[in-house]
C-alpha cells in the first residue's frame, strides 16, 4: 500500500488554501505514470524542433515549497524539492513524456517470471560530484534509506521489497513479497534519489545530476550551477545556471512571468490562463488529465445509495461540463466515475463518457422510487471548489427532479471525521504511479480507504491477477474491465480530472506536457534550453 491520498487541491485553484492547513497547498506527488514498460534504452532529449544549446540562466518561479524545505529526500512532498533534487541527483528509473518507464541510472532491467524477482543493470561510468563512480552499493544504500526504521514517505511503496542484493558492481537483484510488474515505476518515485553509500549529511549535496548547488535559501530561492564538462545524458543539462524562485502567490507568479522577471512558472491560475495565453511572448503548456481526480462518493452499502438506480441517477444528473467550465475554467477533463486518468495507457477509451442526461437520471430515480433529498457533505477542506461544485450539482439535479442538500461541514478534521464515515461526501484522489495502486487503494474490498464501501469479489480478483500479469495486452483488458465495473456499479461520481498548467517564456525550449508532473516532470532545468 502506498500512501494516504487526500490532500488539498493542486495547482488548479492553488491560491485557495485548505481549511485545515495553512498558507501553502500540498499535493500528493508520490504518483508516477501508469504504464508498464520494459524499455531498456535510454530515451534521449524530447523530440524538439531544434537542437539544444548550452548557456543562459533559467529563472523559474514556482509554488510548492517553503522555507522549511530541506535536502533530505525523506522529507520531500512538494514541487520545488522535486525540481531541485532532480537537477542535483538522479533516480534509477525515469518516466518519459508518454508515461513509460525508461532507464536513468538503471540502464535496463528484467523480471523473472511471476515478477517476484527482478534484476537491474546499472549504468557504468557515471560519477558523483565528488568524483566517485556510481555503483550497486550506492543504489542499495539509497533505496534502504527508505526501508526499515525510517521517516520516509516512500517506506510504504517499498514495503513489498523483501531483499536487495548486489550481484556485482553494476547489477542488483530485488526480491518482492509478491509479484508486481510495476516495480520500475515504483523505483521512479522521486524520493528514491541515488546518493553515495554512507551519506548521512544531506546538507552538502553530492549527486550525479547535471548541476551543483550554488545557493541554498529555501523559501526564497535555490540556485543551481551546471557542472563543468559534458553531462552523462546527451543533450541535457544545458543552462549555465538555474534559479528557482519561491513565488507562492499565483497572481504574483503570473505577473512575474508576464513582465519577464522569470522565464517559467508552474501552476498557472486556471482563471487567468486564458488571458495569459493571449500574451504573444508566453507559451502555456497544458498537461491534460494529469492532476487530481475530483469526486463525490456514496456508500454503496447504505440507503439509499445501495440502490443501483439511485447511483445511476446521481451519475447522469451531474453537469460535469458546467463544473469543469466554471470551477476549473475549462482546464480539466471530464471524469468518467473511475480513477484512471485519460492519458493513462490503461485508460478505458472504449468506455463512453457518461453524459449529463436529466431525463435518464429522472428515469432511474423513478425506477428506484426515490429522488431525494440527498444530503451531500462538502467542505473546502476536502478540496478548493468542493462547495462550488456541489452547488452546481444541486442546480443540475433539480432538472431531473431530485433534491440535493448541500451540507457544508468544517474543513478541520474533514478527512478523519467526514470522509469514510459520511454516506455521501466530497473527496479527491491524487494520481498514483500505477493503475494498480490507483485502483486497489480505493476499490479493493479490503482497502482501508475504500470510501464507497463497494465490495465485489470479481473486481478484487481482476486487480490481483493484473498485478502479476506480464502480458501488457491482457493486463490492459483487465484494467479496462475493472474501470467499467467501477464506472457502472461503483459509488463514485468522479466528475473531473484536472490539468497541469505551466507558463513559459517563448525563448524556453524543451517545454512540453508530461504524463506525470508539471514543468516537464519537474525536470525543465535538465531538459530545457534557450533558443
Amino acid at each position, binding site marked *: 500500500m502506498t500512501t494516504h491520498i487526500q490532500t488539498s487541491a493542486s495547482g488548479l485553484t492553488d*491560491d*485557495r*488554501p485548505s*481549511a*485545515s492547513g*495553512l*498558507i501553502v497547498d500540498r499535493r500528493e506527488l508520490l504518483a508516477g505514470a501508469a504504464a508498464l514498460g520494459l524499455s531498456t534504452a535510454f530515451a534521449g532529449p524530447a523530440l524538439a524542433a531544434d537542437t539544444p544549446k548550452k548557456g543562459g540562466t533559467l529563472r523559474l518561479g514556482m509554488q510548492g515549497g517553503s522555507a522549511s524545505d530541506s535536502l533530505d529526500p525523506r522529507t520531500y512532498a512538494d514541487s520545488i524539492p522535486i525540481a531541485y533534487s532532480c537537477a542535483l541527483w538522479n533516480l534509477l528509473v525515469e518516466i518519459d513524456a508518454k508515461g513509460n518507464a525508461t532507464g536513468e541510472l538503471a540502464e535496463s532491467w528484467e523480471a523473472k517470471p511471476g515478477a517476484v524477482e527482478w534484476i537491474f543493470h546499472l549504468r557504468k561510468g557515471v560519477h558523483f560530484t565528488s568524483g566517485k563512480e556510481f555503483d550497486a552499493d550506492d543504489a542499495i544504500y539509497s533505496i534502504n534509506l527508505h526501508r526499515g526504521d525510517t521517516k520516509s514517505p516512500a517506506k510504504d511503496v517499498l514495503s513489498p521489497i523483501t531483499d536487495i542484493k548486489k550481484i556485482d558492481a553494476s547489477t542488483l537483484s530485488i526480491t518482492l513479497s509478491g509479484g508486481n510488474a510495476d516495480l520500475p515505476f515504483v523505483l521512479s518515485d522521486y524520493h528514491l534519489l541515488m546518493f553515495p553509500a554512507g551519506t548521512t549529511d544531506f546538507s552538502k549535496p553530492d549527486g550525479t545530476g547535471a548541476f551543483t548547488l550554488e545557493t541554498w535559501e529555501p523559501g526564497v530561492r535555490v540556485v543551481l550551477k551546471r557542472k563543468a564538462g559534458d553531462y552523462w545524458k546527451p543533450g541535457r543539462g544545458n543552462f549555465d545556471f538555474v534559479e528557482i524562485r519561491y513565488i507562492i502567490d*499565483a*497572481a504574483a507568479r*503570473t*505577473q512575474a512571468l*508576464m513582465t519577464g522577471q522569470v522565464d517559467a512558472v508552474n501552476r498557472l*491560475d486556471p*482563471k*487567468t490562463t*486564458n*488571458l495569459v495565453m493571449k500574451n504573444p511572448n508566453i507559451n502555456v503548456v497544458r498537461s491534460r488529465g494529469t492532476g487530481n481526480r475530483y469526486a463525490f462518493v456514496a456508500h454503496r452499502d447504505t440507503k439509499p445509495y445501495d440502490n443501483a438506480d439511485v447511483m445511476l441517477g446521481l451519475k447522469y444528473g451531474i453537469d460535469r461540463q*458546467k463544473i469543469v*467550465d*466554471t*470551477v476549473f*475554467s475549462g482546464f480539466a477533463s471530464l471524469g468518467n466515475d473511475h480513477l484512471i486518468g485519460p492519458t493513462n495507457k490503461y485508460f478505458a477509451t472504449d468506455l463512453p463518457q457518461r453524459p449529463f442526461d436529466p431525463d435518464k437520471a429522472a428515469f432511474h430515480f423513478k425506477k428506484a422510487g426515490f429522488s431525494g433529498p440527498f444530503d451531500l457533505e462538502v467542505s*473546502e477542506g476536502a478540496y*478548493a471548489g468542493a*462547495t*462550488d461544485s456541489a*452547488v*452546481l450539482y444541486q*442546480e443540475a439535479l433539480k432538472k431531473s427532479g431530485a433534491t440535493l442538500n448541500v451540507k*457544508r461541514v*468544517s*474543513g*478541520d478534521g474533514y478527512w478523519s471525521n467526514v470522509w469514510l464515515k459520511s454516506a455521501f461526501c466530497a473527496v479527491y484522489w491524487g494520481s498514483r504511479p500505477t493503475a494498480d495502486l490507483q485502483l486497489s487503494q480505493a476499490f479493493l474490498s479490503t482497502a482501508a480507504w475504500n470510501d464507497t464501501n463497494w465490495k465485489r469479489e470479481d473486481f478484487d480478483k481482476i486487480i490481483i491477477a493484473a498485478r502479476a500479469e506480464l502480458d501488457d495486452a491482457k493486463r490492459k483488458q483487465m484494467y479496462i474491465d475493472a474501470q467499467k465495473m467501477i464506472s457502472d456499479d461503483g459509488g463514485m461520481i468522479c466528475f473531473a480530472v484536472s490539468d497541469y498548467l505551466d507558463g513559459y517564456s517563448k525563448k524556453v525550449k524543451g517545454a512540453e506536457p508530461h504524463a506525470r508532473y508539471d514543468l516537464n516532470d519537474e525536470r525543465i532545468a535538465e531538459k530545457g534550453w534557450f533558443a
Partner: protein
Amino acid sequence: MKIFGHKPPFTAWLGMTIVTVNLLVALFGPLLTPYGESQSAGGTWDPPSVAMWLGADQIGRDILTRLIYGARMTIGVALVTTVLSFLMGITTGFLAAVLGGWVDQLLSRLVDIILSIPLLIFALIILGVFGPTIPVLILTIAFLDSTRVFRLARALAMNLSVLEFVEAARLRGEGIWWIMRREILPNASAPLFSEFGLRFCFNFLFVAALSFLGLGIQPPYADWGGMVKDNAAAISFGIFAPIWPALAISLMTVGVNLVVDWLLSIEARPSGAQAEL
C-alpha cells in the same frame, strides 16, 4: 438636526449616510439580489451588462450579488467582533482601573505581552489551532483586539475614577459593578464610541487581510476581502472585478472614519491654531 447635542457637518452626514446604507444593504440586501450567493450565472469575469451590473467574478458569479451578501458577512463579522472585543476590553480595563493593585498589574502585564506579539502572527497560530471557522475567527480577533480596547478603557477609567463623583459613589458603598456601569461607563462613552469606529475599521480590514491570507471567512460565503483576493489576478489584465469589493471596503471605512472624525472633533478642545491672531 442635532446628534449628541451637536450639529453634524456635511462630512459627518456623508459618513452616516454611507454607514447607514451599508448596514441596510447588509440587513436587507440579500432579499433583493437577482442571484444566489454562490450561483454561477455567467462566465469567468464577464464584463458588466444589464443582467450583471458589475460583471461576473472568477467563476461567473454576479459581483453585485456577492457584494451585497459580502456586506452582511464582512460587516457582520467585523461588527460582532468589535462588540465582543469591547465587552471584554471594557470590562477588564475598567476592572483593572477600579480595583488597581495586583489585578491591574496582572492584566496590564498580560496585555503588554500579548501586544508585543504581532497580531497577524498570533491570529495565525490561534486560527491554526482551532481552524478558521467564523466563530473562531470572531473570537480570536475579538480577544486580540480587546487588548487594545483594554488599554484605552483602563486609561479612561483611571482618569475618571479619581474624579469626585466616582469617589462619592465609593464612599456611599456602591459595588464595583455599579461604579463601572453607572459612574464610569456613561462618561467614557464618547471616546469609547469613536474608538469603536476606529477598531471596527481596523477589524474590518484585518478580516479582509486574513481572508487574503486564506484564514478568514471561507468560501462559498462572500466577503469583501476574499473577493479582492480571489479576483486580484484580474487587475493585471485590466479587469475591474477586484476593484468593486476594494471600493466597498474603502467606502465603508471612509464612512465610519468620517463619523469618528466628527465625534473626535466634538470631544477636542478648540485649539490655539484657530484663535484670532
